[in-house]
């Protein structure tokens, strides 16, 4: 058996069913022995392979896999892998490499991918000897999914892939330095329970870590038992159902007035699986200044990194909650809940963009409530309109690029999600800027016959950049105007049905038509370029400086 066969066998043994990839010189020997039992999805750009693997992982909770050739192929993966890294998605990337004898000689399509991806992956490997390959694959698959999940890359030189593997090699992982802590320290958990019991104005903040720990029901149970209002980060949306009476919405730069106000007013903040990014905290020094912060995360390095952790708890969020819930007394906290309810503001005047998202929520509400709809976004204004106006009821029903904010994520992530969850409806809400970054994947959608529904909010510009230029740069609009293609013709050229919706009054009908289409479809909606995402806290400002109208 050669190295390439060991690779595929190992992936199959680890339950990998799909790999997203793009072949090239250095991986032809690997593709040559691709087993028919493993589904290979041919994307049109390696970045899309990494992002599809990421979307697959987020939608299913399982390992996403991608493969690319050496040099340019591997380099094209990087944005997608970094995206998975920042949002802690388990992704395994295999890259081809020039033969070991040519390493360091600037051979054709040679790049130092091992060096280049060191800071962009959870861990990575360059396989120098074929006898190390079985062990490395076991380690890589384990590392991607253990503790704080993330991307792991294995760089496989061509001669190693082609070499015969000795009959008996030790494939057991050797990771003496990697021991993620699962259970929270009991004394710390007890301290957290005491802090919550004596709090007058406690607040629960949920992040993406809750979803990765499969702990959403526990978070809801804790909130209900202890009477905690709940705010969510972008990555945490869906942890607590949007219509739950304790739910205040998203926190941060484009968060709700209620969530941002509650975090500034609270006296104990229980943060689960969040990393307190600058988009969440605003000005760090002014964030939750009156609160004792209980921070639970599986990654010790997150505790105290951005904001002080007065009661740090290292551990799996689910395990910690299992320990914490019995210790926390049952409370109603009517006074605090009333106060928090008074922070809620009536929805302001929606523009076309926000209205389109609300219309989508009406058309797809039942699917969403049942957990049968996965909504994928790209990055920009449409993304924030979705986060603000679309109700999420279940974890893993919103896939969006949070930490990296990578435009172009949406379409490939939707491909990955639809392949991972063939029984669910996958809807991509995107913008005319974002969609053009990985537009070529329309071909993958068609080739794989994926019934993805694309809602394109087209404002003919890079809306979020334009919004900042209008609000913070004296309206000096530079390099934001996009003369778009004829989107209907374009979609049709790829064999995808498309409709145009020019009148906001027709949005709901248009969306209903789109959703009724059995195959892939695109609805092109015009949105005025001047529309803003509000509320907004300007970058680097305290959350209290929230702008609600412009």
């Amino acid at each position, binding site marked *: 058996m050669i190295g390439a066969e060991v690779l595929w066998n190992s992936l199959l043994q680890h339950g990998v069913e799909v790999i997203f990839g793009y072949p090239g010189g250095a991986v032809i020997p690997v593709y040559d022995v691709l087993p028919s039992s493993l589904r290979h999805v041919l994307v049109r750009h390696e970045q899309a392979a990494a992002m599809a693997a990421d979307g697959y992982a987020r939608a299913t909770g399982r390992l996403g896999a991608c493969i690319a050739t050496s040099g340019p192929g591997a380099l094209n993966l990087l944005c997608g892998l970094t995206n998975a890294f920042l949002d802690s998605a388990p992704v395994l990337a295999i890259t081809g490499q020039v033969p070991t004898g040519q390493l360091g000689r600037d051979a054709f399509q040679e790049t130092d991918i091992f060096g280049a991806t060191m800071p962009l992956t959870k861990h990575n490997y360059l396989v120098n000897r074929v006898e190390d390959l079985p062990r490395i694959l076991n380690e890589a698959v384990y590392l991607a999914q253990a503790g704080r999940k993330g991307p792991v890359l294995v760089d496989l030189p061509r001669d190693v892939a082609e070499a015969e593997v000795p009959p008996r090699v030790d494939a057991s992982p050797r990771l*003496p330095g990697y021991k993620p802590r699962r259970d929270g320290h009991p004394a710390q958990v007890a301290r957290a329970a005491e802090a919550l019991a004596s709090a007058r104005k406690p607040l629960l903040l949920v992040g993406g870590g809750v979803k990765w720990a499969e702990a959403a029901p526990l978070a809801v149970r804790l909130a209900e038992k202890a009477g905690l209002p709940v705010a969510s980060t972008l990555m945490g949306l869906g942890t607590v159902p949007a219509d739950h009476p304790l739910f205040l919405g998203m926190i941060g730069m484009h968060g709700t007035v209620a969530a941002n106000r509650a975090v500034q007013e609270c006296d104990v903040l229980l943060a689960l699986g969040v990393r307190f990014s600058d988009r969440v905290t605003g000005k760090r020094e002014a964030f939750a200044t009156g609160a004792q912060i209980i921070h639970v995360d599986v990654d010790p390095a997150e*505790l105290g*990194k951005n904001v002080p952790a007065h009661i740090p708890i290292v551990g799996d969020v689910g395990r910690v909650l299992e320990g914490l819930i019995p210790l926390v007394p049952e409370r109603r906290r009517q006074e605090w809940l009333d106060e928090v309810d008074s922070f809620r503001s009536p929805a302001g005047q929606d523009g076309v963009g926000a209205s389109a998202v609300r219309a989508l929520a009406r058309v797809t509400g039942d699917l969403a409530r049942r957990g049968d709809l996965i909504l994928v976004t790209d990055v920009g204004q449409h993304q924030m309109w979705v986060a603000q106006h679309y109700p999420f009821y279940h974890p893993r029903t919103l896939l969006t690029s949070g930490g990296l904010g990578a435009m172009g994520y949406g379409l490939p992530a939707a491909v990955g999600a639809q392949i991972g969850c063939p029984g669910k409806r996958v809807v991509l809400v995107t913008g005319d800027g974002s969609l053009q970054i990985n537009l070529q994947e329309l071909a993958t959608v068609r080739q794989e016959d994926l019934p993805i529904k694309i809602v394109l909010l087209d404002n003919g510009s890079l809306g979020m950049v334009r919004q900042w230029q209008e609000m913070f740069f004296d309206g000096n609009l530079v390099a934001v105007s996009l003369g778009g293609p004829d989107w209907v013709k374009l979609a049709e050229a790829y064999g995808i049905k498309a409709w145009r919706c020019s009148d906001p009054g027709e949005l709901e009908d248009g969306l209903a038509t789109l959703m009724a289409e059995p195959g892939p479809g695109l609805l092109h909606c015009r949105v005025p370029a001047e529309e803003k995402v509000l509320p907004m806290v300007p970058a680097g400002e305290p959350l209290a400086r929230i702008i609600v109208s412009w």
Partner: protein
Amino acid sequence: MKRTFSVLVENQPGVLTRVAGLFGRRGFNIQSLAVGVTQDPSLSRMTIVVDGDDRVLEQVQKQLNKLVNVIKVSVLEAPEAIGRELALVRVHAPPAQRTAIMQVVDIFRAKIVDVARRSLVVEITGDEDKVSAMVDLLREFGIMEVVRTGKIAMARGSKESRGGMWHGQSTIRSGRRPRALARLAGGGTGVWEPGECAGAELEG
């Protein structure tokens, strides 16, 4: 504030790059870094001196621990630990100055390891202050070149280091008699290859 981290890592390609990259990317300020293999050839020991406030130093430790190839990170500070540096100093030494230089060398229990017509190479081992003090004194004779190793450090008399001692015995270079009083402040321990740092505690 300076802190000395002793970092046990897997002896594998790329580990130094990972550590150095981490410091660069997170803006941690590295003062010195010394690496060598330990008594177990599959492990290396890095001694890293970092400058920063409490939050930064805590992050340094946590981020180092996060690297998969890092096995253990400990903080080593005096008086619980011994820290040593080695320096080679080429000093301008016309015949008229040699006696004076040799006196300084003697006082610091340093050594002259190379003699040329117009210069001497002095080797000194000690903690950072001692090495700096000697370099300062030699400056008045005219220093032509200084090379310093960066600090290596080891905990005093703990269980862990005794364990290392017994493994380390076989790696001590023979033919160089260890100085028994090395642990006394400023005492030299002779020359050790980086790989022999595991044996240094034994000499103390």
